């Protein structure tokens, strides 16, 4: 299988260096080649399993339970100004 590593990396928002792409390409092809054996299994009429116990998503009442902890929650951000997250300019 031929995998466009740079494209998959861009989908993942990871900028690979050329060296990384050269190394990861064959490794990825190898892994995908291995998992391709799944196609041997007859799964006609078999339902997919997304959750081991087939549990329904529980709902809860929409009640505010937390207090305002903005400073603590933002403390780990790389860049904060006046309580706002700062990112490079998006709109000209």
């Amino acid at each position: 299988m031929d995998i466009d590593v740079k494209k998959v990396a861009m989908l993942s928002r990871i900028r690979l260096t050329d060296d990384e792409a050269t190394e990861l390409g064959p490794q990825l092809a190898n892994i995908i080649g291995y998992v391709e054996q799944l196609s041997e299994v007859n799964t006609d009429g078999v339902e997919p399993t997304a959750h081991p116990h087939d549990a329904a998503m529980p709902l809860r009442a929409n009640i505010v339970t937390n207090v305002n902890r903005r400073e603590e929650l933002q403390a780990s951000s790389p860049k904060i100004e006046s309580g706002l997250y700062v990112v490079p300019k998006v709109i000209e």
Partner: protein
Amino acid sequence: MPFSSLSDIQNRLNSGQTTAVEVAQLYLDRILAFNDKLNAFVHLDAADVLAQAEASDAYRAKHGARALEGLPIAVKDIFCTQDGPTRCCSNILEDFHAPYDAHVISQLKEAGAILVGKTNMDEFAMGSSNETSAFGPCCNPWDTDRIPGGSSGGSAAAVAAALTPAALGTDTGGSIRQPAALTGITGLKPTYGRVSRRGIIAFASSLDQAGPMTRNVKDTAMITAAIVGHDAADATSVADAPIIDWLAACEAQDMKGLKIGKPKEYFIDGMDAEVRQTVEDALKKCQDLGAEIIDISLPHTEYAVAAYYVIAPSEASANLSRYDSVRFGHRCDNPEDLLDMYTRSRDEGFGSEVKRRILTGAFTLSSGYYDAYYLKAQKVRTLIQQDFIQAFEQVDVIATPTSPISAFKLGEKTDDPLTMYLSDIYTIAVNLAGLPGLSQPCGFAQNLPVGLQWIGPAWREETIISAASAYEFATDWSTQHPAEFNANGGES
């Protein structure tokens, strides 16, 4: 004392022979003496540990002892703790401090446990050898040139060398059971949904489950009892899970009438012959104890690794999209624009195994490939689960080797990711099916520990805890420990 079980330490605390402060100091001394050799701990705040121990002694004097009063427990770096850093052994979380405690951390604190630092692990729990950690590999106390297993390698090494009497790990494809096996300790992955996942940094949400890593089965039961229960704030925590008397399950001393399934797909030519013999001998011992060994088949076993390496990376690629360097995490210097910031920060912050998994997942979820890989893997997952359901109509528990090999050398498998993936061949199906699995020591191969894995029906952990307790009662594997770490940090 250092190699005492949690319950022995509890007895000494209850009878006044020692105090939480003395116990904490003993293990702190051992961490200081031995951690350089093992790299099992990646964060430790000794003053904070002693302060917790003092508070515990004061609590005991005033109110009496809670379930884990004064007992030191280390936790994998994947658990969010409000005190100290939480980094998941990744450079992308280099400066991260969690704003809240994981639910299980709160439960341990409420039970009176002393939290002794964060243990080493594969980055984001992606690995089977602890070699993908941003803090460097952790070593196996039985042979420090070898890996302790992974991803909860630091927790395993710390317990095996008695730098702590017990630890918490997490298990997505074997990350508690495989390192427990390779370091000669006991570890339990509970039924999926039994333990809250809130505040545990997510790898693969439909597979991840936390559990204890300890010196013996009773200690595993003691910790499990403290961390189970419904958490309304975790949508995957199951509300009506059957309740188990965890400590009563440890009282089994024989296996009379127990039907043990021995799946032929787990005893194969590719595995290490000495490991195989050791596990076969363990099953003979079970027969002596009154169990009936029944040959069974789990026919879709050979597809478990392939299904896992589609499902786990797919979920990981979605979960790890949150590391955008906006709200937390590493940010690259001088980003030109938003896209440059995302892509360069993530390239710099993630290690190569994490990137490999994110890319694998992004590919298997991508347009045109979703049905052939992700959906197909989920259907195979159903078949793997049905194999177990059918087997449990015939047997009470299933016994297998935990790992096809004993601990390998550091660096031995790092060049070929796929070979590394295959080392999880005996543990992965349990996660796909959401079942409980326990590994306990059952002997040695190449002078390295070998693990016996018990698999039980969903929500029936008492079946595997009883089987493991009876086996432990009749053997002495759980009391053996690596000679190099016998030297003492305190009293004996």
